[in-house]
């Protein structure tokens, strides 16, 4: 998903690779129960989450808390690093049985499961959850469109209608999902918060103000949009491998200014901030509060898109020039050091990641080769060509745009920067009529699967509006490869072939990746940062691991 921490289509998520900073040894899964129980904490987010409704939530602001409230049929192991990417049964008794043709998934809802309000969980609640995603036109609908009958359901426009491909037996708890074509990532889909179970009585409306009960270690008891929401521990929650949580009550306040959040964490008025502290304060925090501050890489990829359908980037030599000239060490400074430079599109921690070593266009940790880049531009006859660079106005993005604009000018193009509000940025560059030649993009995984990244350069996804293949990459070999590999039920088994596709994309300079952003955990003094801070690769800080000293 495209990401800016505050915009609608945004999701900032977390790393997998075991580059865990200062916490490598805690990932044994059951450490949560060792923490001190009880107490209340107050934490902060920078903006109102897009929705406190599992059917609609699609940003890190909402996924981080909702993960603990709405357990889907499947979920991920509560662990750091690669272990956290392992799928485990959530509301389902076991991982689904997949038919030989890869089109039918069957699983059983656990017996005796109850929502936080005491309502028993029924198998048909799953179908209701999917219906809500589809009929509310959620950003996550695309994940469920492969279900047989989903398109017909949407077209009928009748929320209470039936989705032919989902059969649920409330008596036995059995659920069968039929797909129109095999989808190797469907287990991951069953583990998204979109699939989080809610009672069948939940209305077909955004429930942010009165979040429905769910199955999870916490429930949302108060929700005042744009101000705060409160999560309280659910007594009697019991699903194996999902910790029950340590603190009794978590109040999340909406505090817009990151610098005020950081100040409040330092002073102890807040116990945790979801945003990264401002660049300005980072140096001081790193020195003075190193015992309760850590940085961790994310399952994300930052890159410049290069529009192959328009000059000058329709010429491979010009695209290559960009890759040759890029200096990730300059970019890392603009991230206040929170960037893991790389020339890969698929980040570490995702199956299919194979570090390109050496990078085809020079060491990502070293300076670029401007002379050679200039030469390439000249050879292509593109010297002096006009280029408009697009950037959004979120933290440090304008500076990155300025760096990139200057770089393009250095290699002989005539570049100009256009900064657009983060809320409308991806729509603007995703619209064909904008004719965006190049600009900033960052992609955060919806789930730890290579398809999530390779879709960015899949020619079959190109559409006139809301396009996310910003570079209009349309390489038959890649298109075919992505279509084929996406059907494989086990991405790890075909990791080599994913890596091969990625290598082709990089060698053809279809994109100009420069690394993964690192996010932060900054806790107050009264929090037990040493034993109670688990960072999940996909969902970020796991609040159920938090405990007081």
């Amino acid at each position, binding site marked *: 998903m495209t990401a800016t921490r505050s915009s609608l289509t945004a999701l900032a998520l977390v790393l997998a690779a075991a580059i865990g900073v200062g916490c490598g040894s805690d990932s044994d899964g059951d450490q949560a129960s060792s923490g001190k129980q009880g107490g209340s904490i107050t934490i902060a987010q920078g903006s109102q989450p897009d929705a406190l409704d599992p059917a609609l939530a699609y940003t890190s602001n909402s996924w981080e808390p909702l993960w603990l409230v709405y357990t889907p049929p499947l979920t991920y192991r509560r662990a750091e690093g690669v272990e956290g990417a392992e799928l485990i049964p959530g509301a389902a008794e076991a991982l689904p049985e997949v038919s030989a043709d890869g089109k039918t998934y069957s699983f059983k809802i656990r017996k005796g499961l109850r929502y936080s309000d005491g309502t028993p969980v029924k198998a048909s609640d799953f179908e209701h959850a999917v219906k809500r995603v589809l009929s509310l036109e959620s950003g996550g609908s695309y994940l469920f469109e492969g279900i047989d009958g989903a398109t017909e359901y949407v077209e009928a426009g009748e929320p209470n209608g039936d989705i032919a491909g989902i059969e649920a037996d409330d008596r036995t708890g059995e659920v069968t999902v039929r797909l129109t074509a095999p989808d190797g990532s469907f287990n991951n889909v069953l583990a998204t918060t979109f699939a989080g179970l809610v009672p069948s009585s939940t209305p077909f409306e955004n429930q942010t103000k009165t979040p429905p009960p769910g199955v999870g270690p916490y429930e949302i008891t108060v929700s005042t949009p744009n101000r705060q929401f409160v999560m309280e521990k659910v007594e009697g929650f019991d699903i194996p491998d999902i910790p029950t949580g340590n603190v009794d009550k978590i109040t999340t306040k909406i505090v817009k200014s990151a610098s005020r959040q950081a100040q409040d964490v330092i002073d102890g008025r807040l116990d945790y901030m979801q945003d990264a502290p*401002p*660049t*300005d*304060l*980072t*140096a*001081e925090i*790193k020195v003075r509060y190193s015992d309760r501050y850590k940085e961790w890489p994310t399952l994300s990829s930052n890159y410049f898109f290069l529009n192959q359908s328009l000059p000058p980037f329709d010429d491979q030599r010009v695209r290559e020039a960009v890759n040759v000239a890029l*200096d990730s*060490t*300059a*970019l*890392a*400074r*603009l*991230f*206040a*050091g929170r960037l893991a430079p790389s020339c890969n599109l698929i980040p570490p921690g995702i199956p299919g990641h194979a570090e390109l070593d050496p990078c085809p266009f020079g060491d990502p940790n070293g*300076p670029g080769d401007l002379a050679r880049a200039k030469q390439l531009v000249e050879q292509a006859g593109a010297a002096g060509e006009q280029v408009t660079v697009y950037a959004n*106005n979120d933290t*440090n993005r*304008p*500076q990155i*745009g*300025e*760096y990139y*604009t*200057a*770089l393009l*000018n250095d290699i002989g193009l005539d570049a*100009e*920067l*256009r*900064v*657009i*509000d983060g809320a*409308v940025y991806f729509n*603007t560059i995703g619209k064909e009529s904008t004719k965006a030649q190049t600009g900033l993009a960052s992609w955060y995984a919806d789930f730890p699967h290579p398809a999530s990244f390779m879709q960015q350069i899949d020619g079959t996804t190109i559409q006139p509006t809301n396009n996310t293949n910003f570079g209009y990459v349309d390489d038959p070999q890649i298109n075919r490869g992505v279509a084929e590999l996406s059907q494989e039920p086990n991405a790890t088994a075909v990791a080599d072939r994913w890596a091969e596709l990625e290598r082709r994309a990089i060698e053809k300079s279809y994109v100009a990746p420069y690394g993964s952003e690192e996010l932060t955990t900054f806790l107050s003094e009264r929090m037990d940062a040493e034993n109670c801070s688990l960072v999940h690769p996909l969902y970020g800080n796991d609040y159920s691991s938090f405990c007081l000293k």
Partner: protein
Amino acid sequence: MGQSPWRLALRRLRRDRVALVFGALFVVLVLAALAAPLWASAVADRAPDRTNETGKIEVDGRQVDVVSLDGVPIGPQWRGEYFLGADANGRDVMVRLLYGARNSLLIGLAAALLTALLATMVGLVAGYFGGWVDAVARSTLDVIWAFPVILLGVALGTALAVGGLRIGPLELEAGSMAISIVVIAVVYVPYMARPIRGEVLALREREFVEAAHAQGAGPLRTMASELLPNLTSTIVVFAPLMVANAVLLEAALSFLGVGVVPPDPSWGNMIDSGVESMITAPHLAIAPGLMLVLTVLALNVFGDGVRDAFDPRSSAAWGTRRL
């Protein structure tokens, strides 16, 4: 006509030493802006958009990062290169300050000129013709007046920044400075058009206008040769204050991200990115802010003197209170 009151006013202004000093200060600021390329090439040896994130310079015999690995830029060096330090992209703040002066002053002067032009036209036409023409003009001014100034500026700026504007042959490209100029000019028209209209209303009843009519002068002729010369002192009194207001509004718009588009510098957008790093690099916000204050102060003090000299009763007042 009107020669002697003018001379009188100029003599009064010449005696106002404070006003003259600040008038001169403004001239110096304009000259400094004009000399920006000179400083960039001869002293700092850096173009305003020359980034240098990974560069090093020598400080006290040691090689120091222009931007540290944590992204903290170097502070003022008080000598040729990086006289006022660097910004996050390793660019020379002094050079950007001077180039920013060009943009800020250009927009301020052009917008004030456009405001004066529009306001005079509206005021003349409304006051001269009266009746429904006046009614239409006045309601238009009322509507602009009723808009919260900044909100109107930001709204126009944002909408235009996405797609630009095309009205017939007139085309404003998205991101162009002309957008800021037009937005600022329109916002301030009522401030100036209302007093001018009032004055025209009063002048219209005077004998020399009647006389012109009697001699068969048409409306255009009368407005241009009889009314306009009598409005000059009003316009002159407003001019410096309007420039001050326009410079301030430009800075405010750029501060909110809808004025001059980076990497082109303006004082407003420099302050905007500077306040983000008040802790580690306060020079980024303080330097452009001081320039802004100095410019506006110079214009206000000078404008105050001009008003005292030309028309002490004028409704022209310093300070964009509604900003």
